[in-house]
């Protein structure tokens, strides 16, 4: 079992300066993934698939094999690796644009095939790398570069809830949403990642962890307020919790 506290830099994390903005959630999640991989002692057989978006440079921080993927095709690339190297641990790391907009077909079909991979979904309700455009998960009324008057449900539709959507499929083994809005949320995220990666190590099948995450710059908030936004407004629309446990739908 994972120790409650790890104060050292995980071996799976490289010792470099971050390019992420102050208050960004990516660094926290990178660290959590690295800790999980260290705890499971799978660093030498883990292959990450990085998306297009701010975390396209994830390999810069990860001390294990990583490949890029075209925008949204991350789970297909992961599938192509896992099927020919079934004893390796393969995960995709995707943002909301990658996973829920351009890559929606790949997301659904990879889950529906029950690929034995882990998908880590960073939902910060906005496109970061391209400059703060509306994401498929931007909240109703949220102001972005491409919804300057706020997301309008009439013309833009409401935000997509990915855990709920994937939970309608038969094959996923684990589906969980967490929010890294504070120490408690970070601990829950670490536990969720451990459950998801452990499921893959044990050959149980598809695991999906959605992490509600701060992006102070494009959520247009201070770092502290961005955490509040994640924990309150985002979590109100995207309820945290386990949706699928050991292949069974968890009733709320």
């Amino acid at each position, binding site marked *: 079992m994972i120790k409650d506290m790890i104060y050292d830099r995980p071996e799976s994390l490289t010792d470099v300066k971050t390019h992420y903005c102050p208050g960004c959630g990516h660094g926290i999640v990178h660290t959590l993934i690295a800790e999980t991989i260290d705890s499971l002692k799978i660093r030498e057989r883990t292959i990450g698939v990085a998306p297009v978006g701010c975390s396209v440079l994830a390999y810069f921080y990860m001390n294990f094999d*990583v*490949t*890029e*993927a*075209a925008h949204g095709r991350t789970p*297909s690339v992961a599938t*192509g690796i896992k099927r020919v*190297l079934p004893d390796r641990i393969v995960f995709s790391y995707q943002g909301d644009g990658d996973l829920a907009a351009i890559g929606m077909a790949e997301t659904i079909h990879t889950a529906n095939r029950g690929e034995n991979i882990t998908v880590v979904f960073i939902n910060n309700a906005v496109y970061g790398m391209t400059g703060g455009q509306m994401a498929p998960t931007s909240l109703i009324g949220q102001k972005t570069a491409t919804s300057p008057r706020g997301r309008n449900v009439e013309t833009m539709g409401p935000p997509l809830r990915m855990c709920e959507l994937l939970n309608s499929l038969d094959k996923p083994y684990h589906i969980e949403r967490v929010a890294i809005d504070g120490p408690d949320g970070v601990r829950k995220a670490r536990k969720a990642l451990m459950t998801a990666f452990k499921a893959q190590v044990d050959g149980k099948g598809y695991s999906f962890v959605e992490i509600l995450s701060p992006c102070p710059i494009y959520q247009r908030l201070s770092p502290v307020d961005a955490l509040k936004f994640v924990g309150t407004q985002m979590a109100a629309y995207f309820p945290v919790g386990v949706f699928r446990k050991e292949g069974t739908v968890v009733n709320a």
Partner: protein
Amino acid sequence: MATRVLMTGNDAIGEAAIRAGCDAYYGYPITPQNEITAFMALHMPENNRVFIQAESEISAINMVFGTAAAGKRAMTSSSSPGISLKQEGISFLAGAELPAVIVNVQRGGPGLGNIAPSQSDYFQATKGGGHGDYHQIVLAPDSVQEMHDLTILAFKLAGKYRTPVMILTDGRLGQMMEPLILYKGTPPPMQRKAWAVNGAINRKPNFIRSLYLVEGELETLNIKLQKKYAGIRQKEIRCEKRLTQDCEVLLVAYGTSARIAKGAIASVRAAGIRAGLLRPITLWPFPYDAIARIAKHVKGVLVVEMSSGQMLEDVKLAVNGHVPVFFEGRMGGGVPLESSIVKKIKSISRRKIMTGH
């Protein structure tokens, strides 16, 4: 003597891929290449290989990317509209320097077009197709035997140069049956790829990428790629020359068009007109020099294609104005008639040779 079997061109490609050691095939239905997908669905699992019917051509080419990144052999196949969807993936494969085999069993276009054979994806295949400064090797079979043999070659070249290789064929060659001799060699042993992402055991982590944000880094990659392409141009040009030693009319055609051109040449030779054929087998790299050498001693060159004249541009570049270049082609799934080609050859052969130009 080796046993001959009867197969469709599409099946011959599938059979060759398995014999070449293809570890994973990813497909999506589209006519007229469905036989490949069905063949692989049946036979890849029998050989303990991976088969997935992907949710789209886009997903299929990116599964190919993953398998190639893992250091294994991968193939996908499709037909024209589906190949258009794969272009982003092919560009990424080229940028990340990953080996892959892509089969295009061409149909008529543009748009949804029709399902009849065509050669109208020549520009797309040979001039890039996807974005960015890259090339893929393009192989053009003209028989079921070559559908088989060039698939074996495609895997070899893809692995050797870490580059995507396309087999550019058409619905007619894909659907027709011919006897062929199956490849009996064993797949070259899969060496451990030092660059692959297959687990950083006793080594530093590998990263596969085509993103280079630091100023100058991408240009360095571009220069490296261009050097690789120069090497491919030097070593891998392949063409068939038929009756070109004494020819006064040179035909240039590939694939299905080359078969019809061969018939036309036999017909005019019987009538005493010396026509010959240069059939490019590699469309990229293109046999410019071979064409230029023969063009020096002919009255004219005739390009035959199932398109509006796409390879025609490369032939003109090769001939460089030394002699006139003529064209006989059909579009939209039409196939050139031998009689029309004969007529063109005869009219070119009647030309007076200009001297001292």
